[in-house]
């Protein structure tokens, strides 16, 4: 520490003092860096960097490449022979226990970072997930009666024990439940959209004319139209479930008429109308293994196909992949839930999808659909250090996540956890 000198030297020394303080301050703030070395880095955006290094500073990726300098005091994680990937992103979940109470109007106020599903997510490499206030879209549908829109949703990170860093964004979409079968709800949805459009039009006219005609009254905003106004303003997309080709086309008609953004969930028959979907640039959340018998009352193609994803890709449609059970099961069924999210993408590959797009569907594209791709979904400098290290290719049925980091902090170590530490594949 510098003592005060006499006045005429004061300013110089002050400057020097400040300079030194700044240096020492920044040195102190120079949080210890972490380096992950020697693994094959599946960056998602820039291919695979073999035997690469990632630098992590202050919870973000600060460097990535094959020959980058690692600071001397950095904590080094040896990833030799391993696969290093961004943490997986689940674009839909029915996570039941992440909420600490019954009635949820704001997910941020109810998150439970100690829920066991959080620790299962870490063990499965899923670091970011979309959650809603009710546990499943079916319950959403049942509880809303004739109201087609409502309930909150959020994107969260699986920061076990840490509430402060759990919420990424709330809300990220409008939950909408309409389909050609639920005609009353759909009717209400369209009516409300039209009402909102009318209102906005009248409002625009008023804004234009009000300076000239002071006597004009501002049009009153009809009640309960806020979510529709948001939709028309394209602030948030509507998440709409549509499995059959006709439901999908009906949803696309709404896009055409109102210009709103939508995300289609389900999309079992999307392959039949892939071009139509591509034209509106509507993204999907699909489950390759969803099965539906071809319908006997339809003259054209119908039903499910494992080639859904490949056909969509060919048409230029973006999609995220989720499993049949978008939760972390403890009931004994293996292979159909988020515990093995990459397996669902692997099935898409068996249907002809290229590996790169399949990987994107559980990382970057999912993040884009959720509106959080600025922070997660790929290994790039500046993004959050949400990183998983696996002992094999993610699409190999034997590959396990060995380490999971979120915001640069190691939250899961397979060897230390009870879940899978006894499974070593030494045979």
């Amino acid at each position, binding site marked *: 520490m510098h003592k005060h000198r006499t006045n005429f030297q004061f300013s110089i020394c002050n400057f020097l003092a400040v300079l030194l303080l700044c240096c020492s301050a920044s040195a102190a703030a120079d949080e210890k860096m972490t380096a992950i070395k020697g693994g094959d880095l599946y960056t998602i955006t820039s291919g695979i960097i073999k035997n690469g290094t990632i630098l992590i500073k202050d919870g973000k990726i600060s460097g990535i490449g094959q020959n980058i300098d690692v600071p001397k005091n950095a904590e080094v994680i040896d990833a030799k022979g391993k696969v290093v990937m961004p943490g997986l992103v689940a674009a839909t979940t029915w996570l039941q226990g992440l909420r600490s109470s019954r009635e949820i109007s704001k997910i941020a106020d109810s998150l439970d970072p100690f829920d066991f599903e959080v620790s299962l997510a870490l063990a499965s490499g899923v670091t970011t997930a979309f959650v809603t206030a009710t546990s499943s879209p079916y319950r959403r549908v049942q509880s809303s009666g004739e109201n087609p829109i409502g309930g909150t949703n959020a994107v969260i990170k699986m920061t076990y024990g840490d509430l402060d860093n759990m919420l990424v964004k709330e809300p990220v979409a409008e939950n909408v439940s309409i389909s050609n079968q639920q005609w009353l709800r759909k009717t209400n949805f369209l009516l409300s959209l039209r009402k909102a459009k009318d209102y906005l039009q009248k409002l625009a006219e008023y804004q234009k004319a009000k300076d000239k005609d002071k006597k004009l009254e501002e049009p009153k905003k009809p009640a309960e139209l806020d979510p529709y106004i948001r939709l028309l303003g394209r602030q948030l997309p509507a998440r709409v479930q549509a499995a059959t080709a006709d439901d999908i086309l009906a949803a696309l008609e709404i896009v055409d008429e109102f210009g709103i953004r939508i995300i289609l969930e389900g999309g079992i028959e999307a392959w039949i109308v892939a071009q139509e979907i591509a034209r509106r640039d509507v993204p999907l959340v699909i489950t390759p293994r969803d099965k539906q018998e071809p319908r006997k009352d339809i003259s054209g193609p119908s039903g499910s196909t494992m080639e859904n994803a490949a056909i969509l890709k060919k048409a230029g449609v973006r999609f995220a992949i989720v499993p049949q059970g978008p939760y972390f099961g403890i009931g*004994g069924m*293996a292979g159909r839930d988020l515990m093995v999210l990459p397996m669902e993408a692997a099935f898409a590959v068996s*249907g*002809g999808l290229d590996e790169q797009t399949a990987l994107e569907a559980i990382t970057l594209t999912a993040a884009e659909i959720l509106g959080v791709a600025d922070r997660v979904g790929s290994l790039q400098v500046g993004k959050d250090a949400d990183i998983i290290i696996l002992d094999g290719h993610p699409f190999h*049925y034997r590959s396990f996540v060995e380490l999971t980091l979120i915001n640069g902090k190691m939250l899961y170590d397979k060897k230390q956890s*009870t879940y*899978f530490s006894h499974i070593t594949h030494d045979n």
Partner: protein
Amino acid sequence: MKSTILTVSVVLVVLAVGSLSAQDNPAARKLAIKAGKIVTMTPGAEFATGKNVINDGVILVSGGKIEAIGPASSITIPQGYSLIDASDRWATPGIVEAHTHVGTEGGFNDMVTPINPELRIDDCVNPEDVGIKAAVTGGVTTIHTMPGSGTNLAGFTVIIKLDTSCPEKMILREIGAMKIAQAYNPEREGGDLGRTRMGMSWSLRQMLKQAKAYAKAWQEYEQGQRKEKPEYKPELENMRKAFSGEIPTIVHTYEGWGVMQTMRMFNDENQLKVIATHTEGGGYMVGKEAAKRDGVSINVGPFLWEPFFWNAEQDNRFHCVAAEFYKAGVKNLSINTDSVGFGEQEELAFNAAMSARLGLDDQVALKAITINPARAIAIADRVGSLEVGKDADIVIKKGSLLDPTTPVDLVLINGKIVYQRKGSALVVKQAAERSREKG
């Protein structure tokens, strides 16, 4: 000119008809498959020694059976054989499912009385069942389809092959196994008598005692050891097959004490070949006891790992049921899907992959869906491995059956192509074409 055209067309028609009839007649169906890797699943031969794996091999199929199998260098493909060139793919035996409910119509739980020895599900086989068509796309060629577990003795099962082109010939064995259920499900509403496990066990023992005596009496009579002809009881006839060893008994059972009870009642007391199926909830805790008994086989699924709230060890770990049994020494180990309806049966190989993921040896996992279930349901003389004389039930796929990133490309049942994936780029060169090429 006209007559030449006529002759040529007649010849062509004759050839065409000739080749068609040759194709339709199984006795004449001759086919050769070149495969980059053949995994035979021969019982007793282990992968490690290479005895189960043939690299760059050839399989000859004739009359619906495997005629020859070996390295390409040792087998000349004769004339008159069509050729499938799968040199960039693997050939494995068709997958055998030992526990499913797919392929029948009209319900599979008749729950008026708890013991129903006279019921048989082969009367209800439905070849149109959409689950069957889907199953073949996953490489499943033979299924053991059963009545449900609503009662203690549900009846008798059926074993069918999934070649629906000839429904009359689908049934491999009409009376597959005796179906028993001993825990949970039958406690629902299966009749008045024996709602508790005590009552159930008593009812089963009474039935077994009666059937055992009946079977013994008839066996003695037929072997000339007994003069008096025993009374003919049609409702006990199928149970005779179980006691004669012709068919196994498959028992839906759970937990350690449950699996132990199953083994004791069926194997120890009645010398029946028994398949203990499901077995979650701690069944593997008596794995060593199962390993000791040659007449006991274990069929795991659909829950492949012990649920956290039902795990006998309660240690917050994923315990792979099949791997635990294998560790305890059980060799007669198979995996099921316990499918109903549509969308599950075709994923039997994936179930095996998931068991492998959770700790089961890869080769054991593959055997658990081919030769082991075939042995468990006593059809190993026909299916389950690629060996000379066995049915030509063959699956062609890029890579292992366990690999989820590649689809099944081609399935043969009894030497006939029952499924060929669109886009598989597998060409079947007809014999005529081949001989034209050569000549």
